């Protein structure tokens, strides 16, 4: 049967109806010629039963019989019936069933029951049809709950096959999320629950159907994949009113998004109704409910939706709530937010969410889910207008699977999924993610912005940098934060390109990557960004092979960075030109590591501090920034200086999270400590700040012993998580030409740093450089140690290892 050529300007629904009518006539004619007899009837089922018969689609027919066809003559007649349809050019997809078979929920054959939901009698024995209708209604009444549950499960499984996203670059318009199958699912579930289909859903049929008709007609077969060529062709033909492929696809995603949301809303309702009363009673997450939000069935509802009208910060609080608890807004909540998003955005014009909002949101454990919700309700584009540039953006290539915006959100989800990775080599990245601790938000923000420059036609990294810089400045991020995020955006392709085109076994490449990244912290964030970026390209892209390559590259460059800690500084002429003579002298006397992570104004501050120390023997600068306290002490270096300063801070109850110690060529030390004040002592008692500064000065001058100060403090109690960390002490002889490098990994505890440094001093060793980091409950301390100006010999290493093991409470010696 041929179909007149359809033009995109014509309604697709009319075409489907016309085709259905013509096939009805053919099917009835063939039935009357070959199968018409008492005890036989013909039903249209599936898409054909719904009167939506697409060109080149199968014609779903069910021959209803009073008893199974048993004689060869009966089978021959059925064969003749079908042959006539095939000869007419129809692809008949048929089955022959009894009423009993139709009204049985057959395991593994949900399709039969579902296709019968759309059945339509065409011809045959009226009494048989009447009996079928009566039995079918009873069957539905009895098995309604079970059929509903099976349809919901099948829909969830189908969504999972497509990674639960509509944003595939080449979507399947029938089976993919947001496609025709979801529209039908909503219709089936509405029919089973006796509710009318939502009006907005009915309006979505036409755009979806027109794209499918276009595809079937263009390919001359039942092809439902909207590939790149078809996207171009559809846009050229003016389908969906689009002028180019990008606008056409945006329109497609808009429709698919609406269909998916409507279908999920119906599925959620059905699943909720089908849950047992006991499971509702034990809905433990209900206790997370607050005065503003109700938590039910793991979904967030607004207690007072009217509050959206006058409380502009309510959506932000909702997104923070979802990010904190890993809950999704209910479809109903999403619909309300989406409905009010445009007005909300207009009212907020000129007002920014601010750096503190982004910092908090992206530090929370389930930030990706919140960002996804913000994207679907339109709030992400309102807070970050630059997002609009990549919203639903298709960049045709045969490597990526998702649109640019979806790729970005999937990358954020990859990071969260890392927490559950237990199999090497992916587990390695899971540990790196945990090590990131409070820097996690910077990585997430960089990921959120790293591809915003795509689609501009220019170098997307440069474009993303410009967009990100404007955003970071507008939102009020600190300069160091801006630099950290922009670094990640600038270098987001560095490691993947190195793996692809450089000899990663070459020392030159390690040196180059170490120079490009600068610090171990940056390298860690960059490795994780690379991992997430590659993984989010599509399922299966981050193979174990590639993960092993990336983890090995990370470890090698990390070791190279540790090696370079005490390399002499080679200061750029540009930098020197803007510094004062004192700052230039400071840099000339300190190792290169000192420069990393510091801005020129830090050099000036430290240079003044060093001058003051030369005059007064010691000087201290205490400040608070970015949620942590920062103390810099310049003093004449002596054996126990570093240990005493660390111990002094611990004696005040401060928790050291990061510190560095450097010795200037002139014999003065510049030690910096970043620490948290868990009891807010310094904040609530400003005089304590002065007392801490004075005590640090006295410790630096050797007038007070940290051991004495610490004796007054109560014995520390280890958190339970720390108990799982196995202490490890590693000596590296070949990392530095001047010193032995000792890395201590141990469960963190108050005064650990003081005890380690004191143990090193007690062994008669000099600490030339320290790099200390605390990641959750894990302390990672690297000491560059010498004795009499030279690296330690093996005997001295063994002795020091024993002393450090006693401090860490380690059993046998760590790996070497």
């Amino acid at each position, binding site marked *: 049967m041929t179909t007149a050529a359809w033009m995109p300007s014509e309604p697709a629904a009319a075409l489907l109806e016309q085709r259905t009518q013509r096939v009805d006539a053919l099917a009835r004619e063939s039935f009357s010629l070959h199968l018409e007899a008492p005890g036989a009837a013909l039903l249209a089922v599936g898409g054909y039963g719904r009167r939506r018969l697409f060109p080149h689609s199968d014609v779903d027919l069910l021959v209803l019989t009073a008893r199974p066809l048993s004689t060869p003559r009966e089978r021959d007649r059925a064969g003749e019936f079908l042959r006539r349809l095939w000869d007419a050019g129809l692809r008949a997809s048929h089955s022959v069933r009894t009423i009993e078979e139709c009204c049985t929920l057959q395991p593994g054959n949900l399709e039969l029951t579902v296709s019968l939901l759309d059945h339509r009698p065409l011809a045959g024995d009226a009494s048989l049809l009447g009996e079928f209708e009566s039995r079918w209604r009873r069957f539905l009444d009895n098995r309604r709950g079970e059929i509903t549950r099976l349809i919901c499960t099948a829909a969830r499984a189908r969504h999972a096959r497509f990674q639960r996203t509509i944003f595939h670059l080449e979507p399947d318009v029938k089976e993919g999320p947001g496609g025709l199958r979801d529209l039908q699912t909503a219709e089936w579930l509405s029919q089973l629950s006796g509710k009318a289909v939502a009006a907005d859903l009915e309006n979505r049929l036409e755009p979806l159907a027109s794209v499918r008709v276009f595809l079937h007609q263009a390919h001359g077969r039942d092809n439902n994949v909207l590939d790149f060529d078809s996207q171009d062709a559809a846009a050229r033909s003016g389908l969906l009113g689009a002028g180019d492929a990008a606008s056409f696809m945006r329109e497609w995603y808009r429709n698919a998004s609406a269909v998916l949301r409507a279908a999920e809303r119906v599925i959620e309702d059905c699943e909720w109704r089908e849950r047992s009363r006991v499971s509702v009673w034990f809905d433990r997450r209900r206790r997370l409910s607050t005065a503003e939000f109700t938590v039910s069935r793991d979904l967030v509802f607004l207690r007072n939706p009217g509050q959206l009208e006058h409380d502009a910060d309510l959506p932000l609080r909702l997104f923070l709530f979802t990010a904190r608890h890993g809950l999704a807004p209910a479809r109903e909540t999403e619909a309300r937010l989406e409905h009010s998003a445009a007005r909300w955005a207009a009212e907020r014009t000129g007002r920014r969410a601010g750096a503190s909002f982004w910092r908090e949101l992206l530090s929370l454990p389930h930030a990706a889910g919140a960002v996804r919700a913000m994207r679907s309700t339109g709030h992400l584009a309102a807070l970050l207008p630059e997002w609009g540039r990549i919203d639903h953006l298709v960049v045709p290539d045969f490597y990526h699977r998702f649109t640019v915006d979806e790729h970005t959100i999937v990358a954020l989800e990859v990071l969260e999924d890392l927490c559950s990775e237990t199999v090497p080599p992916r587990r390695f990245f899971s540990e790196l993610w945990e090590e990131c601790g409070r820097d996690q938000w910077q990585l997430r923000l960089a990921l959120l912005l790293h591809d915003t420059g795509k689609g501009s036609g220019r170098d997307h990294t440069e474009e993303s940098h410009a967009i990100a810089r404007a955003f970071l400045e507008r939102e009020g991020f600190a300069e160091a934060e801006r630099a950290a995020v922009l670094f990640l955006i600038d270098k987001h392709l560095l490691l993947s390109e190195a793996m692809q*085109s450089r000899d990663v*076994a070459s020392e030159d490449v390690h040196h180059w990557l170490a120079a490009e990244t600068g610090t171990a912290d940056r390298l860690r964030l960059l490795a994780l960004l690379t991992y997430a970026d590659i993984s989010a390209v599509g399922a299966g892209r981050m*193979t174990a092979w590639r993960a*092993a390559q990336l983890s*090995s590259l990370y*470890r090698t460059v990390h070791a190279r960075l540790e090696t370079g800690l005490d390399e002499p500084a080679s200061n750029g002429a540009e930098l020197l030109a803007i510094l004062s003579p004192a700052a230039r002298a400071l840099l000339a006397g300190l190792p290169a590591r000192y420069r990393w992570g510091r801005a020129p104004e830090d050099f000036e501050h430290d240079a003044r501090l060093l001058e003051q120390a030369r005059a007064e023997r010691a000087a201290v600068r205490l400040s608070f920034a970015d949620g942590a306290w920062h103390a810099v002490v310049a003093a004449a270096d002596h054996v126990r200086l570093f240990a005493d300063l660390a111990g002094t801070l611990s004696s005040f109850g401060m928790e050291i999270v990061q510190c560095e110690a450097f010795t200037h060529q002139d014999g003065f030390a510049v030690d910096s400590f970043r620490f948290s004040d868990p009891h807010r002592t310094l904040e609530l008692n400003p005089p304590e700040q002065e007392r801490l500064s004075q005590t640090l000065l006295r410790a630096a001058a050797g007038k007070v012993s940290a051991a004495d100060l610490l004796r007054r403090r109560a014995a520390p109690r280890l958190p339970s998580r720390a108990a799982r960390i196995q202490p490890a002490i*590693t000596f590296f002889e070949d990392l530095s030409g001047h010193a032995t490098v000792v890395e201590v990994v141990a469960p963190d505890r108050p005064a650990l740093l003081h005890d380690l440094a004191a143990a090193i001093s007690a062994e008669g060793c000099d600490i030339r450089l320290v790099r200390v980091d605390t990641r959750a409950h894990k302390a*990672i301390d690297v000491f560059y140690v010498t004795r009499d100006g030279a690296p330690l010999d093996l005997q001295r290493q063994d002795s020091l290892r024993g002393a450090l093991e006693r401090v860490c409470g380690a059993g046998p010696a760590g*790996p070497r």
Partner: protein
Amino acid sequence: MKKIEAIIQPFKLEDVKEALKKIGVDGMTITEVRGHGRQKGHKEVYRGHEYQVDLLPKAKIEIFCRAERVEEIVSTIAGAARTGKIGDGKIFVLAVEEAIRIRNDDRGVDAI
């Protein structure tokens, strides 16, 4: 007919593909593999843990060709994949008894 199997450094894959394309070899199968020859592996230390990296990432290229093209293809692969260092990889040439194109049942060199 011959089968050429080349195990090369992953970062040389693009160079090799490009060189093969220049001599008219478009069909090939590429697999991400791990292994080592005399290069053996090495140890990496991170945060006090030792990682034994004894199976190194490599790329494997498989090409089926007529016997008379073997030398040209092998020398092209070797030239493009060579860095002169341990770990550059190896090339194997194997005899192939038969080739069948599934679509139309072509046999022998016509199926390549």
